[in-house]
């Protein structure tokens, strides 16, 4: 089971990094999403893989780690998921404005010119 989780994280990271290195904003956003899945899983797995012991206290069970999964990584990841949504929203909006104002969805804000061309120029100018 550990192998499955670890390899899942690995595939998500690899896909995320590859998409992060693409030139188009939307691809980068997809990459960020994959990376955030991977990060959340990685942090979550620091509580180890425990099946069937949710950290919700029940009558008659001693409140120890022998009976419940580690709640701390779960709490950390829970807020991380929500914040990741907010951050995705911000990057998406930036990408939209980028596209609308600069007429390019390239991450650098302009289409790559021929080698030696000056950077940062507005294609409209």
């Amino acid at each position, binding site marked *: 089971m550990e192998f499955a989780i670890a*390899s899942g994280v690995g595939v998500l990271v690899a896909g995320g990094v*590859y998409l992060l290195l693409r030139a188009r904003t939307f691809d980068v956003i997809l990459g960020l*999403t994959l990376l955030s899945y991977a990060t959340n899983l990685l942090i979550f797995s620091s509580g180890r893989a425990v099946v069937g012991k949710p950290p919700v206290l029940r009558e008659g069970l001693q409140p120890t780690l022998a009976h419940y999964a580690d709640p701390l990584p779960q709490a950390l990841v829970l*807020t991380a998921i929500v*914040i990741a949504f907010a951050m995705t929203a*911000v990057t998406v909006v930036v990408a*939209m404005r980028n596209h609308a104002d600069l007429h390019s969805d390239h*991450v*650098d804000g302009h289409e790559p010119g021929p080698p030696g061309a000056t950077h940062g120029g507005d294609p409209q100018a």
Partner: protein
Amino acid sequence: MLTLLLALPFAAALIIALARGAPRRTIAWLAAAAPLLGLAVLAWATPAVMAGQVLSSSAPWIPQAGLLLTLRLDGLAWMFAGLVLGIGALVVMYARYYLSEKDSSPRFFGYLLLFMGAMLGVVLAGNLLLMVVFWELTSISSFLLIGFWTHRQDARQGARMALTITGLGGLALLGGVLLIGRVVGSYELDVVLASGDAIRASAEYPAILALVLAGVFTKSAQFPLHFWLPQAMAAPTPVSAYLHSATMVKAGVFLLARLHPALAGTDLYFYVVASVGAITLLVGAWYAIFQHDLKGLLAYSTISHLGLITLLFGLSTPMAVVAGVFHILNHATFKASLFMSAGIIDHECGTRDMRRLGNLRRYLPWTSALAIVASLAMAGIPLLNGFLSKEMFFAEALDAGERNGFRHAITVAALLYGVFGVAYSLRFVHDTFFGQGPRALPVEPHEPPVWMRVPVAVLVFACLAVGILPALTVEPILRAAVVGTLGPNAPDFSLAVWHGWNLPLAMSIAGVLGGLAFYFLLRRLFTLHDAMLRTWGRHLFQVNLEALFNAAGRFTERVAAGGIRRSLFWMIVLVVLVGAVPFLGKDAELLTGLPDPQPMPLLGWILWAILVISAIATVVWHGKRLTALIVIGATGLMVSVTFALLSAPDLALTQLMVEMVTIALMMMALNYLPKQSKQARTPFRRWRDVAISTVAGLGCAGLAYAMLVRPASPVSGEMLARALPEAYGANVVNVILVDFRGFDTFGEITVFAVAALVVHAMLRFARLKPDEVIPGPPASLPIPADLTQLLFPLALTVSIYLFLRGHNAPGGGFIAGLAIAVPVLIKYVLQGARAVEATLGFDYIRGIALGLVIAAIGGLGSLAFGLPFLTSGHVDLDLPLIGHLPLASALVFDTGVYVVVFAGALLILSTMGTVKRRRLEAEGKA
């Protein structure tokens, strides 16, 4: 009382800043009130100080770090405080008439008083750390003063240079002080001064000395760091008169005097301080002769005199210290009056260039007389104060002790100094007030307002009084200051104008005659007016600064410029490399000797397969964006199920909700973005990126595996044990969120709120064009719309249920907030924004604020019971119909979370979804 003395200038600065609309007269009076009242306080303390008492007061600031607000007034501090306040008052009076209508007088006096307070802090501080704080404050406030004329480039450059040099010196001083504190065990001045032997004997002594002296030499403009002082002459003249005669540059030599019992007395100290002082003395005097700017000449002369004082403290004999302290006093009086005279000349003639001045005694008889007397004091002519300290210096230089060779060198330096000092004083007097001229002045010079001359007259009168009747005027002050400096080792001395025919007097006479001869010889041999001496320090500073900027620029160009893509690439490469170190290191046992993994159910493998395939498919199809979006949704769903499988129901629920809103969000974004990604035809780049991402993925997988199979020893057992008895909740994850780490959560919902507002702000006035518009009116979907109508109350109930049970079962504010956001989003899609907003009537921005306020109140509520922020209480309610309801006070906080998440999520989604509509409406109105 000492606190009051220190607080006066700061209070006055604050009042002036607040009353900046007041007339210039009032502002000037306010500014003058601070030093005048301060002098009154000082006068009150005088009898005690003269009797040898040390007044002090102390209050803790950061006692853990040894930083106390200790103020201490002994003879030395008293003398310096008198200088700072006395000359400060005169400078305020002078500046009142010097500043033109265009200069902002509240700003000027505000800065000046700030500086005055900082300087007072330096001299009054009885704690070395406190002194460093004020020391830095003098650097900063002098930066503001030197750069007061912000429209002038030389002022800006001079201010920057002064700040760089003195700021770096201040940093070195802080290091030295910290080392002293480590050796002595305290930063209190009394303790430090009493443990001189321990400091000198410690292994850190050379480092302490080097660092403290770096601070002293930068502040007091000692060679080779002297070059900032002439550049600082771009300041308004009252600033120069104050900073570069009496205060700022004297802070360095003050520190030498202050720490004399703690640091002086070793060979290292003697040779370093005395030789730096001697070199500065000669370099300053030599360059002063060849300046053409009045203030430039005075600046180099100041450097030279500071060198003299440093040299005297370096010689370290008790009488040399007496002479050093005495010269501080004398130099402050005559140099301040000379700067003010130079300011008057500049003010009246429109230039300070000595090549264009001359014969001014015809036009400005009073000013000329005063300035001539002051320059004679600078030259060290008998019956003026400069003479007395110069005699003492000569006597000390001649007093050959055991270090014979060095003493001879000092004697020669002293004689040369006598010659140069007379020569540049003569140049100042002769070129300005005698001879021919003035040439090509823009205005006809005439005497300035009488109140501009009064401060000069007061100072010149002091020069004369000290010079003629030293025993009656200055001797008690000097005695108190020397006792304050040296403590029990203070020598007995008496000041007299006439000591009989002796060697120092012969040297003085030789110096005056030599100076006269030298000056007229120079004039005879070549035209002094054409001489141009360039100094290297300033040039090197500029060159180095430029090189630094260029290097930084090139680095940025290499790494970051050329766009985000390149910098992102380098960032990832760097992270991968750093991450690889533990795997490659020699003693890395990250992946060896691991325990066996747990077995995996078949369902797990199916999940795994879907997850991996959909992740890969996302990458493969990323060019077709809609497809990629659907596939990535599957990945998110699998992550959610993984959470559910691995005992994390809260996470599974959250991930599920977030997945829905995220996908919806991105679909809306696609409306304004191209549907396809352009694929660059660069196989090299693609394979390079594949390689990097494979390495990154393998690394993360290895890390995750190594972590997963190791036994854990977490701290969270404590949290499980305490959840029910202390936080009254059975759902430990929720308890952590709203109680144990509630403050953290408060920060996170704030971030969420800010992100939502950012989205709103970015899109509110954006002019976005949809990529593609489907012709015709929106297709109506009656059946789903009706279904939503039915589903909505149900969803609302589920959400409230999830929320209420959150503390004891999976649920809570985050999940419930998203759970209500999703059905509202569906309503938006099916019924249109207008209809939804009409029925709900909900302002999301206000909602976010409301949620944050509720969360804050929930946290603050515990304060009413005398408990810390976010402490839980709880009640059990038995309500009719609903039944038994255990309520923890954290529920209020969770309500805040609920509202923020709901309102934030909907603000984001509704803003995204209604861009087009608002744009069209705006156009319709226009």
